[in-house]
């Protein structure tokens, strides 16, 4: 083994940091999935009849669907009857304000570096904290409320703002969109809801932090963000899970709706438990994320740093319906050990003068497989559409794979579409150069990798960017070459 490979090995062998569990007493549904379980979930959340019907319809459709086989990932068949679809930490009282939230839950999030106490936060970030199936706390609600911004758990939105939920739920990702979206539509338990009224620029970052704690449960959250005319919001999402030997399923749906001149910026740092060094355990992260630029001049921007999960299957997409609307997708996906990722985006150009930009940086190490899959579709009426895509792969070691599957479909002659992809490795000369300046190999690799991913990382809000940089280095520890 060359020295480079040794460093690679060391670099990739560090342990997952958030692998602990906390003994939270929880309230769960029995294992398995049928119409009664869906009724149980709906009843637990005291949902209106229309929502129960919506769920059941999605469920019935799901039973007629087949699991998708086209992604470049391999895993044993999932037994959907062996999953718990509802688990909530037991709280003695339903908290009316943050002061009433169970201190143990607050401690749990504190351990993850997420403060749920407003006054202690220096930076303005409002947090919705979701543990297993439910939202446990949302900060800064009142302050945001003064501007007319609604930021709350999905369940609360169903209770307090049913007309909005009814109008937009499933409007971007229909319940029958795909296998996992249908499953989510049937059994989703909580998530975040966010509404920015006309002309309002949200003054702070909104964020949801997802944590899986209980064993054998699936997590099925739903996020819905609606940005009215000329509004702006930047939204962050983070996630972790304990180390467990069995695989856990996470099938979320995120819907973004941007009206005329509105802008939504959605950032994710995904750090679900990736499984151990031998590929045992880890989260199956099968997620549908889509935004629609419904109004003219609207903009949706996705940024993702994907380091966790044993399998990732995820394509945050933009439907560019409004004229002059634009979509962006910035992604860093790191896979190590036996992780598999099949991720990318779809940019569907419908409106005239629509623009999209894709920057994808894949990093494969260990025995992992990392795929970019993306589509740029210029429809016939999309005059003067523009797209630029850059998809780069970095391979560390000779046992991993990097794959690029871009689909470019153009039906209008005025379109300009450019796609570029490269594959590279970290050069020995680069490492030596760093060493000669006193930087050891491991730090050199972290430096070079962060440089490689910089174009994406710089899209993240400051606080997240620092965390993401550390995470990149941590994920790759032991893997350089």
């Amino acid at each position: 083994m060359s020295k480079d490979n040794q460093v690679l090995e060391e670099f990739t062998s560090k342990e997952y940091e958030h692998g602990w569990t906390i003994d939270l007493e929880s309230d769960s549904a029995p294992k398995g999935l049928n119409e009664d379980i869906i009724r149980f979930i709906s009843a637990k959340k005291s949902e209106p009849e229309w929502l129960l019907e919506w769920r059941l319809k999605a469920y019935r459709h799901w039973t007629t669907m087949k699991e998708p086989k086209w992604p470049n990932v391999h895993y044993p068949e999932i037994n959907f009857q062996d999953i718990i679809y509802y688990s909530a930490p037991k709280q003695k009282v339903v908290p009316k304000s943050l002061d009433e939230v169970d201190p143990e839950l607050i401690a749990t999030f504190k351990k993850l570096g997420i403060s749920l106490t407003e006054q202690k936060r220096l930076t303005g970030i409002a947090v919705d904290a979701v543990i297993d199936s439910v939202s446990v706390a949302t900060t800064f609600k009142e302050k945001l409320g003064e501007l007319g911004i609604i930021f709350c758990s999905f369940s609360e939105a169903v209770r307090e703002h049913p007309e909005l939920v009814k109008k937009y739920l499933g409007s971007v990702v229909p319940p029958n969109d795909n296998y996992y979206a249908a499953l989510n539509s049937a059994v989703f338990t909580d998530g975040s809801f966010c509404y920015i009224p006309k002309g309002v620029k949200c003054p702070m970052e909104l964020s949801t932090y997802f944590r899986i704690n209980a064993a054998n449960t699936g997590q099925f959250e739903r996020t819905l963000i609606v940005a009215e005319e000329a509004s702006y919001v930047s939204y962050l999402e983070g996630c972790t899970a304990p180390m467990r030997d069995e695989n856990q399923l996470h099938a979320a749906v995120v819907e973004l709706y941007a009206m005329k001149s509105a802008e939504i910026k959605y950032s994710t740092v995904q750090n679900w438990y990736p499984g151990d060094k031998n590929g045992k355990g880890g989260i199956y992260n099968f997620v549908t994320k889509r935004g629609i630029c419904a109004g003219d001049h609207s903009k949706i921007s996705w940024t993702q740093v994907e380091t966790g999960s044993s399998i990732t299957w995820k394509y945050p997409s933009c439907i560019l319906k409004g004229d002059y609307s634009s979509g962006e997708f910035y992604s860093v996906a790191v896979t190590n050990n036996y992780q598999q990722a099949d991720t990318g985006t779809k940019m569907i150009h419908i409106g005239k003068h629509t623009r999209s930009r894709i920057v994808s940086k894949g990093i494969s190490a260990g025995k992992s497989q990392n795929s970019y899959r993306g589509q740029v579709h210029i429809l016939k009426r999309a005059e003067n559409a523009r797209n630029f895509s850059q998809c780069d792969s970095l391979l560390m070691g000779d046992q991993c794979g990097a794959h690029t599957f871009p689909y470019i479909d153009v039906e209008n002659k005025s379109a300009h579409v450019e796609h570029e992809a490269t594959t590279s490795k970290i050069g020995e000369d680069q490492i030596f150069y760093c060493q000669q300046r006193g930087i050891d190999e491991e730090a050199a690799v972290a430096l070079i990798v962060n440089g490689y991913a910089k174009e994406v990382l710089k899209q993240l809000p400051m606080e997240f960017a620092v965390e993401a940089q550390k995470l990149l280095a941590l994920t790759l520890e032991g893997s350089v070459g």
Partner: protein
Amino acid sequence: MSVTTEKKNFTQELIASFDLSKFKQDSEQRKKALAAFQSLGLPEGKSEEYKFTPITKLLAKQFKAEELYTSPTPAVSDVSALIPKAFQENCVVFVNGVYNPALSQLAAGSKVVIKPFQEAMATHASVISEKLNEIKDNNDPFALLNAAMWQDGLFIHVPKNTSGEKPLFIYHLHDANASKVTSHTRLMVVVEQSAEFSIVERTDSLGKNTIFNTINEEILVDENASFSYCKIQNDSGDLIHVSNTTVHQKKSSRADTYTFSLDGKLIRNNLNIIIDGEGCESHFYGLYLTDGDTLVDNHTVVDHKQPNSFSNELYKGLMDGKSKGVFNGKIFVRPHAQKTNAFQSNRNILLSDDATINTKPQLEIWADDVKCSHGCTTGQLDDEALFYLQSRGIPKATAKAMLLYAFAGEVLEAIKDENLKQYIDSIVSERLHKSF
């Protein structure tokens, strides 16, 4: 639902009506291929490899199942006007898929063996079986269909150290004046160690009835050998054509492949290049200039199985009218193929409101010490450039032709043989209404 059933029935009908026993030669291989074809079936709409190319639908509309492998006797007696002068001294002519010795003319004194495939199966049995084993099985349904149903073909053997031979011109003519025509042809080329050879292949047709033609080409380029292969597809008729070309390269060999697709109803070219030795060099170029309702679909694969090799791909397309362009370029770099350099570029221009392009450049890399890249663009003619030319007094139509010709020129420039370059240049110029 009903559509799927129909398509399945078409495959089944085809197999049911096909009588394998009438072929005496190659029966084991045919049987194997037929079984594989049966399990695969003709590509359906959802088939990833034929997603944008509705060939089965078209075949089912134009042909009865049993018409897919029967072919009428041709009535062509003179092709001399159709073959360019520079290549008349060494040419092989197939009419409706059948080798026509009377119309063919082979160069005298050549060391290269060129003979009908059936004949070669007797005289060169050991070479054929040995070399065929080296060539990878092709899993394209039409490659399997051809392997089961081929009617005629050609075997070309270039012995060790052969060089300075005249290029061979292979002319596939379909005469569809009287009725529909189907043909399945195979070609095998073995270029032995340190030999050099080149082939120019052109398909052409007469008449307006629909033609269905498949060609399987298995090419082995042995150590240090060099091979050049140029395909010209410019059928004015109603041709549905599928070619499966496999180029298997051994150590330090070089292959240059050119595919020019200018006309026809539906053209699908599967080009598979297998780099099975170190120090190989492979260049492959394509130019598709489509108009009317032509669909040209190029699927290319370069599979780097061994280290230290180089491949470079350039495919360019101009789509006009209601035509469609499809491009899929796969680069595979296998785990041990370190120090591979593989590059791919696909450039497209849409010239009309109804033309479309579907392109999918695909990289799959399992080795870290490699340099691979692909680039792909779709755009329209540069208005600035057009205006610049017009402002110098050049009429718009001429200016446009000049720019289109310049776009195509990059591929033409890559042709090394001067005779061939002139010949293709004349075809492309005519097609682009070049008048300058």
